Structures are given as structure tokens and as C-alpha cells.
């Protein structure tokens, strides 16, 4: 996914200056996602044909045409929009809270050994608890409505972000920090001009894994009694025996998740052009 997005940015001057390279790159740009689509497409078309030909009635696993029809109907009636918005809002708020808390505490723990010794053991112990185990307590404390759901998501997002930020700060190369000191940077200036750029790549990774967990926990939260949201659509589809609705909701989750992740990557890419990574081979600089 990051691949597709990153290859999307080829500067024009480069394309004209090096036609040979440009040709292979343009080919590469489309061939990669296309190759990735091949397997699901073959499976979908195969299943459609199998149901059409009568090898299966497709009741438990509806064929693609039925799923698309269901998606279309849900979209037409405005249901899809309503449920998606509810879910996206929960993820957004929970992600926001988790990121802010994780970044602050992670930065503190990474920057100051005292804070780390003070906080980290507790947080590591809390991390060992499967987050879902908190749910009954959250419901007791915060009720069954939005607050407990958002809290669960925020907890899920918090840990990867906290760990990522702390680890990233602690592993900033001492030699690079020394360059900052040699130019008489300290305190905030050192953070802004050395630490921040140095931790950015790992921070993006932490945000992306935090977001992934956010999507995971929103489903869990919505399973626990919600009247709207994509998780509600899943449960509803199960209780009413509508597999097409379940698959439609799953597909919506997948699309939303991809888009959200893509947004992070697209926002970060301009700031990470400098990266000298193994995985960056062949990507435009």
C-alpha cells in the first residue's frame, strides 16, 4: 500500500530527463498494484461462476454480484454512510486521544531516564493485560455509550505509539545529537532540529500500527452493544442471517482502513524523502 502511494510521486523533470528510466517506472507503477489484484480477482470471478453454474447455492458465502448489490443498497439507503461515519468518528477520537497520550508519555519516557524509571514499569505491566479485559471496567465506569468505546480504542492505540516514540528517542544516534550540541543547541532547539526529525520515520511506523489497532478495537467496541457503526452491521448481519451484509461491512472496513493508512503515509512521505532504507530501493528520491 505504501508502495503504491510512494511510487505515485515521480517528479516530472525526472521523467523527461531520463525516458528510459521513466518507462520502466511507469510500467512498475501500474504493474505492482495490478499484480496484487490478480489473486482476489481470480477468486471472485471463480466464485461468481461457481455459483452461477450451480456448484453452490452461495447462501453462506454470497457471490460477488450479491455482495456488490448489498453494498449498493446500503449505500442507496444512506445506511452505509451512517454506519461508516459512526465508526470513523469513534476511531478518529480514540486514535487522537491515544496518539496524544502515547506521544507525550513516550517522549517523556524516552527523553528523561527518571520518568522512564518511574513510568515504564507500570505501563509495561498494563500493556501485558489484553485490552479487551478492560471492557467490563470501562462500562462500569463510563457507561455503555461512546465514552467506554472510545476509551477502549484509545488504550489500543496508546501502547504502540508510546513504545514507538520511547524506543525511537532512545535510539537516536548519540553522534548526531552531539552535532546539535556542538552547534550550541539545547532544550527545545535540540528537540526541534535534531530529535524530532530523527524520530520521524519510527513515529510514522508507530502511528500506523496504532491506527491498525484502533480499527481492531473499534470492532470489539461495537460488538459490545452499539446501535450504529460497521461493527453493528456485522452483528446485525449475523443475527439476521445476512452473510452478504457481513461481507459488505468487512469490505467497507478494509477500504476505510486502507484509506486512513494511506493518509498517514501520504502526509509523511514528503518529510521522509531523505530516508536511506533498504526498502526504499527503486522508489523515487
Amino acid at each position, binding site marked *: 500500500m505504501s508502495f503504491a502511494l510512494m511510487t505515485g510521486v515521480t517528479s516530472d523533470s525526472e521523467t523527461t530527463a531520463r525516458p528510459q528510466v521513466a518507462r520502466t517506472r511507469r510500467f512498475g507503477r501500474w504493474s505492482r498494484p495490478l499484480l496484487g489484484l490478480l489473486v482476489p480477482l481470480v477468486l471472485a470471478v471463480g466464485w461468481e461462476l461457481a455459483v452461477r453454474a450451480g456448484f453452490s447455492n452461495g447462501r453462506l458465502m454470497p457471490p460477488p454480484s450479491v455482495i456488490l448489490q448489498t453494498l449498493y443498497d446500503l449505500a442507496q439507503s444512506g445506511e452505509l454512510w451512517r454506519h461508516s461515519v459512526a465508526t470513523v468518528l469513534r476511531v478518529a477520537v480514540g486514535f487522537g486521544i491515544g496518539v496524544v497520550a502515547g506521544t507525550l508519555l513516550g517522549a517523556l519516557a524516552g527523553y528523561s531516564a527518571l520518568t522512564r524509571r518511574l513510568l515504564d514499569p507500570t505501563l509495561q505491566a498494563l500493556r501485558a493485560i489484553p485490552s479487551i479485559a478492560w471492557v467490563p471496567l470501562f462500562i462500569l465506569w463510563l457507561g455503555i455509550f461512546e465514552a467506554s468505546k472510545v476509551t477502549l480504542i484509545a488504550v489500543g492505540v496508546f501502547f504502540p505509539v508510546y513504545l514507538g516514540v520511547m524506543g525511537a528517542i532512545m535510539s537516536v544516534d548519540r553522534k548526531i545529537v552531539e552535532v546539535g550540541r556542538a552547534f550550541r543547541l539545547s532544550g527545545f532547539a535540540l528537540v526541534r532540529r535534531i530529535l524530532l526529525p530523527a524520530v520521524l520515520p519510527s513515529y510514522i511506523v508507530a502511528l500506523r500500527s496504532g491506527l491498525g489497532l484502533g480499527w481492531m478495537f473499534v470492532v470489539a467496541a461495537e460488538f459490545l452493544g452499539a446501535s450504529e457503526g460497521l461493527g453493528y452491521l456485522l452483528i446485525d448481519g449475523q443475527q439476521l442471517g445476512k452473510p452478504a451484509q457481513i461481507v459488505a461491512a468487512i469490505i467497507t472496513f478494509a477500504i476505510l482502513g486502507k484509506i486512513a493508512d494511506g493518509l498517514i503515509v501520504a502526509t509523511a512521505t514528503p518529510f521522509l*524523502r531523505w530516508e536511506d532504507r533498504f526498502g526504499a530501493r527503486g522508489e523515487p*528520491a
Partner: protein
Amino acid sequence: MSEQRDMLVLDHVSKVYPNGVHALETVSVTVKPGEILAIVGGSGCGKSTLLRAVSGLDVASSGDVTLGGVTIHAPHEKIGIVFQEPRLLPWLTVADNVGFGLEDLSSAERETRVRAALARVGLADKASVWPRELSGGQAQRVALARALVPRPEVLLLDEPFSALDAFTRADLQDHLLDLWADSRPTLLLVTHDVDEAVVLADRVLVMRPRPGRIFEAIDCDLPRPRDRQSAAFDFAKRRVLAALDRSLDRKSQDHAETKADPGAAMWW
């Protein structure tokens, strides 16, 4: 700017690391403005420690480092440093790396100075590339430009060229002399390479380990530019090598060989 410049004085500087190592013991040196001082000595004799004390990145356990009478306890704007590795910031372009210490200037002025500095080190065309796209020698030249562009009065260099091949190294030594001639900053150069010390320095300090102290100071007043092939050069080199041997309590070897075998001039 060369009128009244500051004397760098190390006065009974000692450094004991927290683990108890006496890295420096009562080292006293006075460096004249514009002097090029090379520091050689066995591994672990405290050369880097000395340089770091002057840079203000570390502080001496006792004694004083002063520049023009002002005690150095933290990095100082008149003192620049070049490390063994280029240590360029990978997220800044070459030009922004060179301009890193010029944050206080207006961006127009910064740009002019950066452009001039890059042209001076022969990398004008690399201004907008990332550090990862440079060769080792180019990166070290950028590091040199970065340290020189704030116009320091004192430039510290800790084995700046030791990671480079012999050709690039000789090239950069000449280059450093050119740059030095522009504004004649005081240079303190730590090196393992006796050739390098003799090519560059006005004075070579030979250090001796455990505890680190100055064993001998050898004046090296050959006219510049110095011919690496000349007899006078060879003689100066042999004096330094002999002092090094004595500093390590080794019997003086016949340093006549050094001319025939360039590898032997690399003193480890």
C-alpha cells in the same frame, strides 16, 4: 578579522572519566592564533579527550581551557569541530547541512554563505542532494564546510580523514590548507598519520598514554606548500616517528625505510 584574535590556552587540564581512567593529566599547551597544531600518539592516549575538552562537549575534571581568556565549559561559537565521521544530518540536504550553524542569519545571507562554502569545497553542484548520495570524501568535505561556514576562530579535527583512502586523504589535506589560508583559523588536528601531521602542522604534539600527557612537542617550520617528497619533509617525519617510538618506550627503528614503503608512514 585577523587583527586581534584569541589565544587558546590549556592550563593544567586533567580528565578522569567516571570509570577511573586518567585520560589526561595536567596537560598545558598554548596555541597561537592561526597556528596549526597536530596531535599524535598511541591509541588511548587521550587525544580525543583533549579535543573534546577544548570543544566544550566534555568538561575537564580540573584545569582550564580558555580562548582569549574566556573559559570554555560548553560548546562555543568561536570553536568548530569536525569528527572522524562526517555526521551529516540525513534529513537535511547538503546545503541545509552546511547552513546548520547559521540559523540566526537571514535566509538570504545564509544562502549566500552556504553557496560560497560549497563552491569552496568544490561541491557547488551537490547543494540540493541528500547526504546519502555523497561519497565518503564528499561527505567529509561537506562536514568541513559546515564547520567552517560560521567562521570559527578555532577548528578542531579528530582524525577527520582517517576513514578515507590515501589519494582522497592527500587531496583533502591540501584542501584543508587552502581553506585554512582563507581566514587562518587555529587548527587542532588529531591524527594517526605522521605524513598528515607533517604536511599540515606548525607544531606536532606527541602524547603518551596512561595517564595521557604531552610527551614531546616538535616544531615543524618547513615552508608551505610542503613537498611530500623533499628531504626536509622526510627528516621532519623521522623526527616525529622517533619521538613516537620513544613515547611508547620502543627502541627507535630505522625510519629510513618509511620513504620506500608508503604504508609504513601510516603510523598506528
